């Protein structure tokens, strides 16, 4: 049975529709990511799951029970907030046990729980401090501890790491992942950071403009994006989008790509051509991830000669910024093979991995 | 935490104090009844006089609750009265005077006290005009306490001597005296403070200039022609003359301060009602001795009177028996003597011995009797005796405007007086 089931949920604030027909079912122990830019409705959806926002249409069930009208207290959930939301007047111990106290748990049991949670998060020596005396990382740990203390059926995380510095963020990310593996409790995690989404999630729901654009495993999302938005949002550096003309008929279709000088013709794989033919458009947007746009092997017929504008070494890889069909694109190469800015380099596209979108609807067509 | 505890303690304290004050009010339950009395006499001798009344009533077995509210010449007390009526907690007696007595009576709130009036024969012991003012539709509803004379001038004799000025006997010699005082470096007249003071001065000036008949037609009947007529213009011109001899810096200073200036000899005279005697005595002088008292001289003489009185209310929070007792005791010779000696006025009850009263009070009594004989007794418009609040206010407004705008002609002021008084009269009779 699904731990969490979101069915046809919509939300309106006044006249603005902020969520439209959301459907997500979450399995036991699953780690679900809601990712999207700010204003996409992901936090609103999380608040609705928590019971902090009302549901305009549709139904949310937790453990098979509709919670549309249930208060947060009646839902067996815990939540970790972006700005920690620690009670400033209480010390760490009382922060952690507050939820238990509100639920009438006896003092002794509360004490035991606090000890257990503190040990798990290695914050035993902080128990008597007030939040103001803690560092950002420590505060987030306490916030997580507060959620853990309740042993809920579902954890909700609302951008918990976005307030931490880069190094700490990576550390905490790992810790959360470990925590999930240890607890095996379902978690819903809201973030705008696609790396967090990719690294943490069992499944990711990419949200945009109040809709779930795609729901799938990180791999599916990455390799097989449902539309141009998802494709562009996930992956860093972002996918290259090149608008191009299709040449030839069904079964033998190619695209024309122009770099610095000549036009190169790229024949497309047959599976792709069939789907493109079914769609019928002659102008499409081709999506190619930087790692699939690489310096061509010598003498390759389908290579595109490009003048490199900027060379960007990142350590393991070096990225090359150039233009194809007058649109800026990023290519990847090995640091050892990096050209210099201003050089002209022949680049090859891995057409097997290229994806195609409709120019207007931005829907995936092949 | 500590904060909460303190708050709790504060609450307890508050409750305790509240309980205490209720307890204090409840002690010594009266036998025959209670009367609550709303007034604006809170200080000095007046308040003490009210205590005398309280004691006298107590010895007869009545309890008088004295609710004194000072400020603004009774305006706060009026506010309280109206609020009490709204919350249906009407006092047994309230300090009300002049035409306002009729207003409350017409509102259906006044209590008939004919019984007391008959017992004490008020028709005989009270001066006619005063007795008339206490009645409404032929029934007594209010009890007078005293008679003040308004049209007095208080003169520092030694200041006059120093300036070489003679005691005035008519308007011209009065102005001559003012001139001499000024020349001697003495402020001729202490006064000109607030509008009330100017209006009080004008009371005296109008009677002295126009006479009783004019005064009544103007201020009691609101006769437009008289209000805007030549006598009013002349009176206003004389007020302007007085103004020239007043200290321009006196504005905003209380009349008490002005009296002090006269006693100290820094000022020569003050035109003020006979309550000024209290201040004179307090400053260590004797009224009628170092400080002479005389009616403001002019073409006419007479008596501008102010009678403080209390109206009785029906359906009040008081017992009728106690209300009767209050009225009866107020007019008892013993109280009349005590009260008026302290307040500087003369007994309103006629035939009360004035033994022990100061020289000016004796003079006032003589003047009063003369005025009654000569039909020269007029109710003071400035002390609410002639008109209701609306009309009085309108008259005050014009006088204030005239006094503060030195370019305003007496003629214009008189005309405005007529029109504004008419308008206020009309509005209050809607």
């Amino acid at each position, binding site marked *: 049975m699904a731990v969490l089931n979101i069915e046809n949920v919509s939300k309106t604030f006044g006249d603005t529709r902020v969520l439209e027909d959301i459907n997500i079912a979450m399995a036991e122990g699953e780690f679900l990511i809601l990712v999207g830019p700010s204003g996409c409705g992901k936090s609103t959806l999380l608040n609705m799951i928590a019971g902090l926002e009302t549901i305009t249409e549709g139904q949310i069930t937790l453990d098979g029970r509709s919670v549309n009208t*249930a208060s947060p207290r009646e839902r067996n959930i815990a939540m970790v907030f972006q700005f920690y939301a620690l009670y400033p007047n209480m010390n760490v111990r009382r922060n952690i046990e507050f939820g238990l106290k509100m639920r009438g748990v006896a003092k002794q049991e509360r004490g035991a729980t606090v000890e257990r949670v503190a040990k798990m998060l290695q914050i035993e020596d902080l128990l008597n401090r007030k939040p103001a005396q803690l560092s950002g990382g420590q505060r987030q740990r306490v916030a997580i501890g507060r959620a853990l203390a309740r042993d809920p059926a579902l954890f909700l995380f609302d951008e918990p790491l976005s307030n931490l510095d880069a190094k700490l963020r990576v550390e905490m990310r790992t810790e959360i992942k470990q925590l999930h593996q240890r607890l095996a409790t379902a978690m819903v995690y809201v973030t705008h950071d696609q790396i967090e989404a990719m690294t943490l999630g069992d499944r990711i729901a990419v949200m945009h403009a109040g809709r779930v654009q795609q729901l799938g495993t990180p791999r599916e999302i990455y390799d097989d994006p449902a539309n141009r938005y998802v494709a562009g949002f996930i992956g860093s550096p972002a996918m290259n989008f090149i608008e191009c003309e299709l040449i030839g008929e069904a079964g033998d279709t190619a695209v024309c790509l122009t770099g610095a000088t000549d036009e190169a013709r790229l024949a497309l794989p047959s599976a792709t051509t069939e789907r493109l033919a079914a769609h019928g458009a002659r102008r499409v947007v081709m999506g190619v991830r930087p790692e699939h746009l690489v310096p061509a092997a010598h003498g390759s017929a389908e290579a595109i000669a490009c003048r490199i504008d900027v060379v960007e070494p990142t350590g393991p890889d070096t990225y090359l910024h150039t233009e194809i069909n007058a649109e800026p694109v990023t290519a990847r190469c090995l640091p050892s093979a990096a050209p210099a800015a201003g050089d002209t380099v022949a680049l090859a596209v891995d057409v097997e991995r290229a994806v195609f979108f409709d120019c207007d609807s931005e829907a995936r067509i092949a | 935490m500590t904060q909460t505890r303190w708050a709790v303690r504060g609450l307890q304290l508050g409750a305790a104090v509240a309980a205490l004050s209720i307890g204090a009010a409840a002690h010594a339950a009266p036998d025959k009844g209670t009367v609550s009395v709303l007034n604006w006499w809170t200080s000095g001798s007046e308040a003490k006089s009210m205590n005398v009344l309280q004691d006298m009533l107590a010895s007869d077995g009545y309890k008088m609750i004295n609710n004194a509210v000072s400020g603004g010449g009774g*305006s706060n007390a009026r506010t309280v009265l109206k609020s009490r009526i709204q919350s249906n907690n009407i006092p047994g007696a309230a300090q009300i005077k002049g035409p306002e007595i009729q207003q*409350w009576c017409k509102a259906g709130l006044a209590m008939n006290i004919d019984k007391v009036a008959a017992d004490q024969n008020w028709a005989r012991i009270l001066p006619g005009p005063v007795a008339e003012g206490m009645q409404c539709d032929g029934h007594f509803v209010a009890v007078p306490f005293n008679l003040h004379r308004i049209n007095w001038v208080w003169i520092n004799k030694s200041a006059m001597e120093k300036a070489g000025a003679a005691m005035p006997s008519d308007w011209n010699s009065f102005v001559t005296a003012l001139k001499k005082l000024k020349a001697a470096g003495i402020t001729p007249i202490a006064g000109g403070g607030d509008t009330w003071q100017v209006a009080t001065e004008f009371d005296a000036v109008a009677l002295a200039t126009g006479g009783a008949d004019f005064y009544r037609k103007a201020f009691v009947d609101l006769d437009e022609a008289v209000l805007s007529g030549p006598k009013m213009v002349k009176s206003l011109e004389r007020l302007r003359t007085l103004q020239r001899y007043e200290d321009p810096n006196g504005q*905003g*200073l209380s009349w008490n301060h002005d009296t002090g200036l006269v006693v100290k000899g820094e000022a020569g005279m003050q035109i003020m009602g006979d309550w000024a005697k209290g201040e004179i005595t307090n400053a260590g002088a004797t009224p009628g001795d170092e400080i002479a008292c005389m009616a403001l001289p002019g073409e006419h003489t007479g008596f501008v009177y102010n009678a403080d009185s209390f109206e009785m209310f029906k359906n009040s929070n008081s017992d009728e028996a106690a209300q009767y007792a209050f009225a009866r005791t107020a007019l008892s010779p013993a109280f009349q003597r005590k009260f008026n000696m302290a307040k500087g006025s003369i007994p309103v009850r006629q035939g009360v011995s004035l033994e022990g009263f100061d020289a000016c009070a004796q003079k006032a009594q003589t003047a009063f009797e003369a005025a009654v004989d000569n039909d020269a007794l007029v109710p003071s418009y400035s002390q609410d005796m002639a008109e*209701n609040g*609306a009309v009085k*206010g309108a008259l005050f407004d014009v006088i204030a405007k005239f006094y*503060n705008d030195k370019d305003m002609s007496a003629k214009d002021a008189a005309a405005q007086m007529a029109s504004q008084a008419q308008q206020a009269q009309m*509005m209050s009779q809607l």
Partner: protein
Amino acid sequence: MADSSPSSGAMPIRRWLDRWLPKLALVPSGVALLVFVYGFIGWTIWLSLTTSSLLPNNTFAGLRQYEVLFKLDIWWVSVINLAIFGVLYVALCLAIGLFLAILLDQKIRAEGWLRTIYLYPLALSLVVTGVVWKWLLNPSLGLEQFVHALGWTGFSFDWLINPDMAIYAVVIAAVWQASGFVTALFLAGLRGIDSSIIKAAQIDGASLPRVYLSIIIPSLRPVFFSAIILLVSLAIKSFDLVIALTGGGPGYSTWVPAIFMYDFGFNRGQIGLGAAAATLMMAAVALAMLPMLIAELKGRRDGHKN
């Protein structure tokens, strides 16, 4: 569908409470507001349309009271006085408050003491403070005498007794009472500003006055809002001070609408006229404050919805 979930007996009550308690919590204040503010406003408006004189009555008189009111010189004097007083009072309190706050914010040694000195006048009742100011501003007793005694005999300060200037004398005493409080408000506002903004601006080459004018003062907008609300509310209610200081005089040159209402309503037995005055004043205040209130509330709401 919404209530299809199975729920134990206690839950509906709790849910109901959760849902309605916040609104219920406003009910006592709301009821009080409805009766003691809006009910009374309605009552006052109604009275202004009646012949009410000594006591309230319900005889309809149309706009008679307003007709009379508009003809009364004393009413217009009161209105103009409130305008002069209100504008000067609010402006001076804001100016002095801001100025002193900026000075106090320069790491002053005895700041705590000075603050208390500036603040204390608000603690005093004007019933008597008015008397003191009356002395101080009186030419023959107070400052003028004092300056004369110092040797400058040509000095003249007769505002209190000059019908044309007396209202400004009232402003002096009123500003004395409230400007320290405004100073505290602004000082608090200044303390709340992130100092890195100031540093950044200075690094950018802005001079100190420039930093204050273009960065700090604009960011004190909410302080201005709070201060203006409190000051306007105090200005409208300015009654005690005027009564104690000038008694409305010389003549009626320092009357304000609050005195007008009180005197006509209670002293002169013209409740209808007092009510008409109150109605017009409330309307004027509403017109003056409403745009600001709406702008501020809107701004806040938008500001808090990210």
